[in-house]
């Protein structure tokens, strides 16, 4: 695309490795960690009673190590260059390393092209998703037998916490990271995000966070699960510092991701792209971004409090010293429940975005779908205490939280209404993405209905904190988010990469995943009802057959994921069958662009005159976006 291709000779390979790139970043990150750790060691004076020197570890060192490490990592990537230039008063610029000439190198450094960042997100998130999944397999392996342990009891809890944190922390951005970053500019007709450097920053920060979480193994792990309840967390070894550092960085990354997406959608819609013409996926992004922007800072604040408790010995969560364990529960769930919808809403957006394409009908009830998403967004700030029905906290408010929680099923119902309306009398093509969307509908239905049991305070007394609630949120998150995540992958990856994915393998992947998923998590509802609490390393022997069944099915999920992995490697790396520009005959703007999408997306900012669902209108109107002519 770039008109001025500077034809200089390529320097030798070793020379190209020097500069602001991932390699430098890793080196500087490790150096920063060591420097921070050393400084922390200077600060710690064993004479004060404040520091837990007797524990043989120094939390200040660890936190400073993480802080300096992240800073070194970001400097190595080149994130400090622009701020320093601004500090010296040089005028603002927007783009860095966007030239297509840089080839694959762009993916290993700070690049502000939204498509590159999206692909970085895809790979990065996929990597951590695989680790989270591996943790799940190890958890299930441990639960094969109640009376003999594969892992130590504390290693098991670390696995549980790692799995939860990895999935809730990293997978939160699993759709907004790769897909919203890639799609939103194309869908609303801008060429970029409002703040491209912040866009890249969110990604690299998230990667740093993920690595920090993994380092917990070297510090003894953390035994708190992803909820990190205090004061249990403060008891933990330095492994809990990794949890705090991880989630704090995730909180910052999510805030900025939401901030950037929201700013883009508000300010950079192309002429004619009115609010009522926005693709429904963008509405899903809007509602999610609002939650991210406002809820994540509270998470960060709560974690900073926890970090202070562990280092400078404040007492936010130490009950005998003026703190309260309830404070953490409140702050965590004020963030935590919007978080749950942060992972659900993008799924709604993708499902409703894909249904019209494969039903060949306009989205049925566009406005009510938008109302549903915004309704969920609003209500999700008022439901958090349903996580605390039996905690003894504000027991007189339980009827209110029961009502608000159940009210949230009304806007969620709108999404189902729109899905059902869109299906009605369509010309349904059961492609792989469509299958995943249908799978989402089925799973989310059961996730939602089991949610009613949990929102009902009397019923919650038994189901709270058991495998029932665990099954419930896996139905909504794995059955909801992950299924739509795969729908999005099968739908957009050919467009994003320019290569076909195997449809046969895709269908194998869907059916094995769908069946194995339901065979795994369905019985967990029963296990919860039969009295199995979450996060236990052992359980009554009578529950072993069911647990073993679940474990075997969980392995089947892993195999199904391997099918997917094989499909990706075989199709995208080896076979490389070029895909046409619009394989699904979609009328969405992004599919009107050539494949691969040029660096600058559009030659000129498009003008929209309709929403992206003009199906069944005779004669079919011309594509709403003029194709970029640059490649012609």
């Amino acid at each position, binding site marked *: 695309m770039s008109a001025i291709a500077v034809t200089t000779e390529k320097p030798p390979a070793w020379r190209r490795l020097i500069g602001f790139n991932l390699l430098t970043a890793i080196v500087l990150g490790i150096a920063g960690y060591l420097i921070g750790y050393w400084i922390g060691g200077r600060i710690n004076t064993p004479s004060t009673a404040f520091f837990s020197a007797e*524990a*043989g570890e120094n939390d200040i060192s660890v936190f400073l190590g993480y802080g300096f490490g992240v800073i070194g990592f970001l400097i190595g990537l080149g994130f400090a260059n622009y701020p320093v230039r601004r500090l010296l008063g040089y005028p603002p610029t927007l783009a860095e390393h966007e030239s297509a000439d840089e080839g694959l190198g762009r993916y290993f450094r700070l690049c502000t092209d939204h498509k590159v960042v999206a692909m970085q997100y895809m790979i990065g998130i996929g990597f951590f998703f695989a680790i989270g999944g591996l943790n799940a397999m190890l958890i299930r392996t441990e639960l094969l037998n109640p009376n003999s342990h594969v892992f*130590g*009891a504390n290693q098991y809890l670390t696995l549980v916490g790692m799995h939860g944190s990895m999935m809730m922390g990293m997978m939160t951005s699993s759709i907004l990271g790769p897909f919203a970053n890639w799609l939103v500019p194309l869908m609303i007709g801008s060429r970029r995000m409002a703040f491209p450097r912040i866009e890249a920053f969110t990604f690299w920060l998230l990667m740093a966070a993920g690595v920090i979480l993994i380092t917990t193994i070297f510090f003894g792990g953390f035994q708190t699960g992803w909820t990190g309840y205090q004061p249990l967390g*403060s*008891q933990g*070894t330095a492994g809990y510092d990794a949890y705090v550092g991880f989630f704090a960085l995730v909180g910052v990354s999510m805030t900025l991701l939401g901030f950037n997406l929201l700013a883009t959608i508000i300010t950079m819609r192309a002429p004619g792209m009115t609010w009522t013409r926005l693709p429904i996926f963008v509405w899903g992004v809007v509602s999610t971004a609002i939650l991210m922007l406002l809820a994540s800072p509270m998470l960060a604040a709560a974690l900073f409090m926890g970090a202070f408790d562990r280092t400078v010995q404040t007492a936010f969560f130490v009950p005998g010293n003026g703190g309260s364990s309830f404070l953490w529960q409140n702050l965590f769930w004020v963030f935590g429940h919007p978080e749950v919808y942060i992972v659900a809403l993008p799924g709604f957006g993708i499902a409703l975005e894909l249904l019209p394409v494969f039903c060949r009908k306009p989205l049925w009830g566009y406005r009510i779908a938008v109302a549903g998403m915004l309704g969920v967004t609003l209500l999700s700030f008022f439901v958090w205490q349903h996580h605390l029905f039996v905690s003894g906290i504000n027991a007189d408010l339980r009827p209110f939280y029961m009502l608000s929680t159940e009210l949230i099923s009304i806007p969620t119902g709108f999404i189902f209404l729109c899905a059902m309306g869109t299906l009605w009398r369509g010309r349904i093509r059961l492609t792989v993405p469509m299958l995943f969307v249908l799978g989402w509908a089925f799973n989310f239905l059961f996730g939602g209905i089991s949610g009613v049991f949990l929102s009902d305070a009397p019923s919650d007394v038994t189901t709270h904190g058991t495998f029932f609630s665990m099954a419930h949120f896996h139905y909504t998150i794995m059955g909801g988010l992950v299924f739509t995540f795969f729908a999005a992958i099968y739908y957009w990856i050919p467009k994003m990469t320019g290569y076909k994915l195997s449809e046969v393998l895709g269908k194998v992947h869907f059916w094995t995943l769908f069946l194995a998923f339901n065979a795994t998590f369905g019985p967990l509802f029963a296990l919860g009802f039969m009295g199995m609490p979450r996060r236990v390393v052992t359980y009554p022997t009578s529950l072993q057959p069911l647990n073993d069944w679940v474990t075997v099915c969980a392995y089947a999920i892993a195999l199904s994921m391997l099918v997917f992995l094989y499909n990706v490697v075989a199709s995208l790396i*080896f076979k490389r069958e070029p895909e046409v520009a619009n394989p699904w005959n979609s009328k969405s703007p992004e599919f009107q662009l050539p494949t691969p999408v040029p660096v600058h997306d559009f030659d000129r900012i498009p003008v929209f005159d309709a929403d992206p669902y003009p199906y069944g209108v005779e004669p079919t109107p011309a594509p709403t976006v003029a194709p970029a002519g640059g490649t012609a």
Partner: protein
Amino acid sequence: MSSYGRRLVWVTLATAIVCVAIGLYIGLYLTNVPGSVAAAHVGPVTNLYLGTVPAAEPTDPHPTWVSYYVVSPTSTNWQHDTTFVLPANSLVHVTIYQFDGDSGLRNPFISQATGTVGGAFQLNGKTTQAIDPDDASHVFAIPQIGLSVPLEGVPDSAKNPCSNAPCPLSYDHETISFTFRTPAKGLYRWQCFVPCAAGYMLGFGGPMQTVGYMDGFIKVV
């Protein structure tokens, strides 16, 4: 090399690296699980000799952590294992050489011995039922079978305290012994109830939450 061949090499290489990484990752979780030790059979009863120290050996990954050890009857040979293999449905005589100072109990209720034969234990040869909760240094408890024995701490005034493992009997110590009946075959956990993890919130982090220090298993076979 052809482009296809190059890709094949890269993918194979990446797969190999990933497999190694996964192996290392799982290995990290599998390590640090302490081994198990069979109790010695002397006569009709099984004898189990344990030692508790304020700090593990200097070569331990956590040299500052308090810990239980399996020791020989004369406290000469110290082994850092906390899974004890015991025969089912039989009497086990436990002798604990206690080298640690006192910390005090969070719940004074645990200052009374329960679940032992006769409901009492021998503290330096003297039959005792309960100790002052503030003098407790550790507790040997198997909650699943209701066994709980408080271990009196070495007084602060002791002249010759042992600072870290291994501790010969020449150091100041308390000897606690008791007999209990093992349950049916299975895996049972034991723990300490005294907040003895110095440097951790409520004294219950670190060694108190890591199998191999103040926690472990009774493997009844």
